[in-house]
Every structure is written in structure tokens, then in C-alpha cells.
């Protein structure tokens, strides 16, 4: 490198530099175009499809579990024989395999299914389009986060095939159990990959939203979906590192024989453990829930964003109380960092801290109430089009309502005494994540599929998918509240068969089983619809839904760089049925007529 005193362009006289990730408008090879692409749309689709496949896989695990719960000790039909001696000898599931399925179902659904689809998929694909950006701020980083996530996924899947099987201490991985159980090491390594990926992603999201908003797109003109993604990114950025740290510490406990989470004097199966001791098992729970509570809002906020977009578009009117929505979601994000120990009431919490956490938990329920109220009131005076995305979006409201409301008795320590670790908890959070988030994600898929592919998905199949899923999923989760109130514990290999107080509750396990398998069947129309529409779906133009936000001003599918001309924003995101305008929608990108 020769020494240069003088150098070109001291003042950057609008030298339009190719930023991080030099663009190659000229045709790229297959690999750079579809596999190692820097394009946020390609990466978004990669995330979405991978996420969907993991959702399907996680669901399959659960369908196997539900057999064991419905018919404890009976050979699993169809696949039972393939599972192998150390999982299900003669097709009969072993307890350790049941625990593996439970832990991995939770892990996969949360970290490999929903978050990648909701944030990695929709966030990546839609958000830059909605803010009128040509791409993410750091395209190369974007690609890296996908591939690190992919590595994490592979690690998790591989863990099923190691000796002793996958992690089997629940997705919460409480030590000392997790430290002494097989399979945990790969789980921890996988988690570290996934966390790293999310961190890179969130840095990218926040920078993009702050830096790359189009001209005229002020914060109060952002589509609510972007706001949701913005807050979500902050949750990921600041809540995930502590779990990464905790993961490293638990790895140390397993591999280096330290005892961060291992107290002195442990006696496992009659033999004292030879470790230094003096560790603290509850510290793991703090670090885990410091992430995992914000994480649950990571699962719901993008869903709320999607639902808001779909509802505004299909009610043909502005969202009711946009400002209230924005403030609530920001407040929700902030509060979600100080409620985590409501998962730990039973660990011996005293009066002071339990009062603190009960109060914060009650406080955090208020913004959710506000958000739901705003969405419900948005329906008033609307002209509702019952399109497929709208069906799912509408269903989200009462389903999230049930899930959210059942959070309240859990949030009050005394009633949590009875409900903690029962199926009531399972029912609570599945109502928010399954008929809540999953339905919202379906809505998003039906809604943005035309933008991503230039084709529309079939509405007939959509309707079948919706009604079938809606009925089945309620039959799956509603009985869980009855079981929980009756005192049936979660994570029970035999579904609580042995306990007297469960006698009257076992019958529901059969109902739930069939409902779950039915739910599985009703996904087939969707899967078929998804792939067939890629080929035969009705072709659409830029703005099939007659929507107002920026992504609809780009071609469907948008080319590299997204917009043909630099978009300029003239108004708020949901200007539907504006008085005095001919059409019932006035896009953000439409100049005022002089």
C-alpha cells in the first residue's frame, strides 16, 4: 500500500457510493441470486419458507405427543415403527422421548418457526418496502443472519440423532436438570447460533427503520406493522444477550464442569456429584425469563402489526386510534422487560418482589387491552370485505382476547398457586401464539403472497383452511382450561393418568388428540394452495387489494432495488374512504392533486 498524502474526494461531493454489499444489477449466478442473495426480498422468502417448514415439523412432533396423551402406552400408528428402539420400542413412546418432543416442540415453534417467519420473513420482506427503502441497511449482514439461523436450525435437528436424543428438559431448560440431562449441549449450541442471528437481524432492522425511511415518511406516518417490527427489534436486541450469556454459562457447567447453576451437595440417583458447587439454579431462571418474557411479545407484536394492516385494508377505513396503538406498543415493549419473574412466583418469592411483579404484570396488560380495543373499534362504521386474510385477522381478535385474558389469573400470584404448571398455562399461551400469532401469520401470507409472487392464492381453499383450522384449534386448546383448572399438570408423559383428581379430565385428552390431528389435515389445503398458486394463481397487478401503503407502489414482485422511482410519502398510512376522494383509498405515495 503506497503512501498517499493527497486523496480523492475529501468532501463527499455526492459520489453515490455503492454501499455495504456492492450491488450487482447485472445478472447474478444462481447461487448469488437465490441462495446467498443480499436482496431482502429473497432473504425474507428464505426465512419464511424455512420458518413454515419448521412450524410444520414442530406441529408434527406435537401430533405424535398427542397420541401418547390420548392413548398412553399404545403403539403409535403409522410412524411408530420407524422411531427406533431408543425412542419408541415397538412403537410405544418412552418418557425420555416424550420429554424430547415437548422441549423441541417448544424450542422449534418459538425460535425456529414463529420468530423467523414473523420477523425474519415478514419483517425482511415487507418492512423495507413499506418504508420505501431499496433494501436493508446492511444486506450482507442480513444474509449472514439467515445463514446463522439456518445453522442453528440444522444443529437443533441434528440433536435428535445424537446418542441420548435431543434436549429433554423443556424449552425452559432449568438447571440442575438441564445440566445433567442428555442432549442439552447441542440445544445450547443451537440456541447460541439462533441468538446471534437474531442480534444481527435486530441491529439491521432498527438501523433500516431509522435511516432508510423515504422522503416524507415521518414516524407518525409509519404503517403500524413497521412500528411493531421496530419495537420487536429492540426487544430482541436487548433481551436476547442475557440468554446468550446464560447459555454460555450452562455450556460451561456441562463441558468444563463448573457449577454456575449447581448448588453444593447435590445427590443424583444416590451418588453425590463431584462439583465445586455454590451455584445458583434460580439465576438461570432469571436470565432465561429476562429474555423469554420479552420474547413472547416478540411473538405477538408482529402478529398485531399484520392484523392491523389487514384490518385497515379490509374495513376500508383508517385504523381507530393510530396514535394510541403506537404509544401502547412502545409502552408494551418497555414494560415487557420488568415482568419476567411472574414465571417464578413458585420459586419462593417473598412479598416485596411478588408485589412488584404482580403489579408490573397487571400494568402490562393495559396496553394490550388498549390495542385490542382500538382494533375492535376500527370495525365500527367499516365496510368489511371478508377476504381470506381478513378472516384470519378477524379471528385473531377474540383468540388473542382469550389468550390474553387467561394471562390475568396467572399474573396474580395467589391464583397462580393453583394454575402454575398446569394445562391452564398451556391453554393461555397457545391461545395467544397458535390461534393468535399463527392465524395472524396466515393472514399475512394470504395478504402479501400477491406482492411476493405476482399471483393470488385461491380463496375457496383459503376459506376451507380457515374454518377447518378455526374449529379444530379451539377444540384443541379450549379443553386445556378445564384440565388446568381441574389441576392437570403439564409435561405429563401419561397425561396425568395416575392422579385421582385427573380422573374426570382424561377424556379431553382424546378430544384434543383428534382435534389436533384434524387441525393437521386442514393444513393440507393451505400447503397445496401455497405451492399451486405459485404456478397457477391468478395474476395480479401492483395493488390487488387497493391498499394505501408503500409496498403496493412497487411492481409485484418487486425487482432488485424495489422501486422504479424513489418513492415520496404525502400522507398517513391508512387514508381509506377519505371524504371528497373518488376512490375509497388514497395511497401514501399519491401526490396531492393541485
Amino acid at each position: 500500500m503506497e503512501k498517499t498524502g493527497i486523496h480523492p474526494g475529501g468532501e463527499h461531493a455526492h459520489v453515490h457510493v455503492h454501499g455495504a454489499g456492492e450491488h450487482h444489477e447485472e445478472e447474478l449466478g444462481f447461487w448469488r441470486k437465490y441462495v446467498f442473495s443480499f436482496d431482502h426480498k429473497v432473504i425474507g422468502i428464505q426465512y419464511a419458507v424455512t420458518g413454515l417448514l419448521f412450524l410444520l415439523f414442530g406441529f408434527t412432533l406435537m401430533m405424535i405427543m398427542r397420541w401418547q396423551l390420548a392413548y398412553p402406552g399404545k403403539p403409535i400408528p403409522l410412524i411408530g415403527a420407524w422411531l427406533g428402539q431408543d425412542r419408541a420400542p415397538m412403537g410405544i413412546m418412552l418418557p425420555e422421548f416424550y420429554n424430547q418432543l415437548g422441549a423441541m416442540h417448544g424450542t422449534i415453534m418459538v425460535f425456529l418457526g414463529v420468530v423467523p417467519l414473523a420477523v425474519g420473513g415478514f419483517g425482511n420482506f415487507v418492512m423495507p418496502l413499506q418504508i420505501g427503502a431499496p433494501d436493508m441497511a446492511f444486506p450482507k449482514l442480513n444474509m449472514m443472519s439467515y445463514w446463522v439461523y439456518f445453522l442453528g436450525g440444522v444443529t437443533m435437528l441434528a440433536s435428535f440423532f445424537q446418542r441420548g436424543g435431543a434436549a429433554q428438559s423443556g424449552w425452559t431448560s432449568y438447571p440442575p436438570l438441564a445440566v445433567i440431562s442428555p442432549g442439552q449441549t447441542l440445544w445450547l449450541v443451537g440456541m447460541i447460533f439462533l441468538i446471534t442471528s437474531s442480534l444481527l437481524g435486530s441491529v439491521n432492522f432498527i438501523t433500516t427503520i431509522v435511516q432508510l425511511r423515504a422522503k416524507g415518511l415521518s414516524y407518525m406516518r409509519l404503517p403500524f406493522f413497521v412500528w411493531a417490527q421496530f419495537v420487536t427489534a429492540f426487544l430482541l436486541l436487548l433481551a436476547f444477550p442475557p440468554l446468550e450469556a446464560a447459555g454460555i454459562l450452562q455450556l460451561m457447567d456441562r463441558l468444563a464442569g463448573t457449577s454456575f447453576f449447581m448448588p453444593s451437595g447435590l445427590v443424583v440417583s444416590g451418588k453425590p456429584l463431584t462439583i465445586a458447587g455454590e451455584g445458583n439454579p434460580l439465576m438461570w431462571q432469571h436470565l432465561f425469563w429476562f429474555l423469554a418474557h420479552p420474547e413472547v411479545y416478540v411473538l405477538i407484536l408482529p402478529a398485531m402489526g399484520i392484523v392491523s394492516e389487514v384490518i385497515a385494508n379490509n374495513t376500508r377505513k383508517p385504523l381507530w386510534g393510530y396514535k394510541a396503538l403506537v404509544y401502547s406498543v412502545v409502552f408494551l415493549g418497555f414494560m415487557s422487560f420488568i415482568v419476567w419473574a411472574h414465571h417464578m412466583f413458585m420459586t419462593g418469592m417473598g412479598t416485596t418482589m411478588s408485589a412488584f411483579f404482580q403489579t408490573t404484570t397487571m400494568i402490562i396488560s393495559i396496553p394490550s387491552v388498549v390495542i385490542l380495543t382500538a382494533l375492535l373499534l376500527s370495525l365500527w362504521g367499516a365496510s368489511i370485505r371478508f377476504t381470506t386474510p381478513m378472516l384470519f385477522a378477524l379471528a385473531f381478535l377474540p383468540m388473542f382476547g382469550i389468550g390474553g385474558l387467561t394471562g390475568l389469573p396467572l399474573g396474580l400470584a395467589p391464583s397462580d398457586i393453583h394454575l402454575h404448571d398446569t394445562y391452564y398455562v398451556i391453554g393461555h399461551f397457545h391461545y395467544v401464539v397458535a390461534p393468535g400469532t399463527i392465524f395472524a401469520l396466515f393472514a399475512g401470507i394470504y395478504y402479501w403472497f400477491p406482492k411476493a409472487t405476482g399471483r393470488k392464492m385461491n380463496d375457496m381453499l383459503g376459506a376451507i383452511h380457515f374454518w377447518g383450522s378455526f374449529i379444530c384449534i379451539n377444540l384443541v386448546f379450549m379443553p386445556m382450561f378445564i384440565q388446568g383448572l381441574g389441576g392437570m399438570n403439564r409435561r405429563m408423559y401419561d397425561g396425568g393418568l395416575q392422579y385421582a383428581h385427573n380422573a374426570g379430565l382424561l377424556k379431553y385428552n382424546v378430544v384434543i388428540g383428534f382435534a389436533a390431528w384434524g387441525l393437521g389435515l386442514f393444513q393440507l389445503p393451505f400447503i397445496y394452495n401455497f405451492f399451486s398458486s405459485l404456478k397457477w394463481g391468478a395474476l395480479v397487478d401492483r395493488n390487488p387489494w387497493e391498499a394505501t401503503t408503500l409496498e403496493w407502489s412497487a411492481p409485484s414482485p418487486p425487482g432488485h432495488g424495489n422501486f422504479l422511482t424513489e418513492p415520496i410519502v404525502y400522507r398517513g398510512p391508512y387514508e381509506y374512504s377519505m371524504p371528497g376522494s373518488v376512490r375509497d383509498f388514497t395511497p401514501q405515495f399519491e401526490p396531492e392533486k393541485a
Partner: protein
Amino acid sequence: MNIPYTVEERPDTGLPNGKLGIWLFLASEVMLFGALFSTYIILRVGAPEWPHGELNVWLGMANTFILIGSSVTMVMAWASLKMHDWGKHRLYLMLTFVLAGVFLVNKYFEYASHWTRGEVPSHSTFLAIYFTLTGLHGLHIVGGMIVMAYFIGPGAKLWQRNPDQFTNRIEFTGLYWHFVDLVWIFLFPVLYLL
């Protein structure tokens, strides 16, 4: 359309993308080490007694000097770019790299001495914390060295094509490096002195 503000600042935020990006990354790093320090506090408060004089203060102090020094050379490497003094920049950047290396070598001898005395992580809570914290910090050093190596080697070409972007990148590298130094500034008293 190209991605705007990769070099120049966005008027309303006054920031180029990378500047915000690196700071957000550092924010997450703060939480990472925060969790480890929090664990340290919990374990120490819970421990019956806490060892003192376990570690060699002089080695630790030496490493503190080395890292502080490297922070100065790092910021100088950036300042020389601002003053368009390419030669000085090269000198300072390489110096930073070397200092980082010396830090690791020093650390290696420290580790080795513990190991030979059988003071391994599994030996006690204190040693567990010590090895985990310093080990993780060491990894951050290595990461920083890799980045520097890149800007000393292949990355340096950017200076011809786009000096301002290069200057920015060195600044961001510096921010990261100062953070690593900052972490050590707290690790040193917490582990070696208290």
C-alpha cells in the same frame, strides 16, 4: 436505487448507517456482559467466602496498560486518517494489532500458570467466573484483531476508492475496540483486586 447513507450522514439523524449499527451492536454487548456481571454478583453474595489474591495483580495491571495503550493507538489510527496521513494510520493500526497480540500472549501465560497449578474452571466458583469472563473477553479481542487484520490487509484498498467510507469503517472498528477496552477496565478490578 442504491442504499443511501452508507457514507454520508442522513440529515435528520446526522448519522451514517454504520454508526448507528455499531452502537446498537455495542448496546447488545453491554447486555451480554451485564448478564455475566449480574451472575457474578449473585454468586458472590451467595458464597460463604470469596477468595482474595487468587490472581497475579501485576500481570493484570500489565494487560490493563496494554489495552489502554491499544485504545490510544486505535483512536490515533482514525485521527491520522482524518488528517489524511496514511502512513501514520498504517503505523498506528498495526501497533494496535500488535498490542492486542501481546495482550493475548500475556493472558496465555496467565492461564497456563493457573492450569499447571490445577486451578481449572471446575475448581471453584471464582475460577469459573474468572475463566468465563476473561475467556469471553479474550474472544472479543480475537474478533477485533481479525477486523484489524482485514483493514491492514485486503480492506485497505477501499482507501483509494472511497476514503470517507474507509475512515468511517476504521472509526467503527475503533468504537468496538474501545468497548473491549472498557469491559476490561471493569474486569480488572472486579476479578484481580476485589
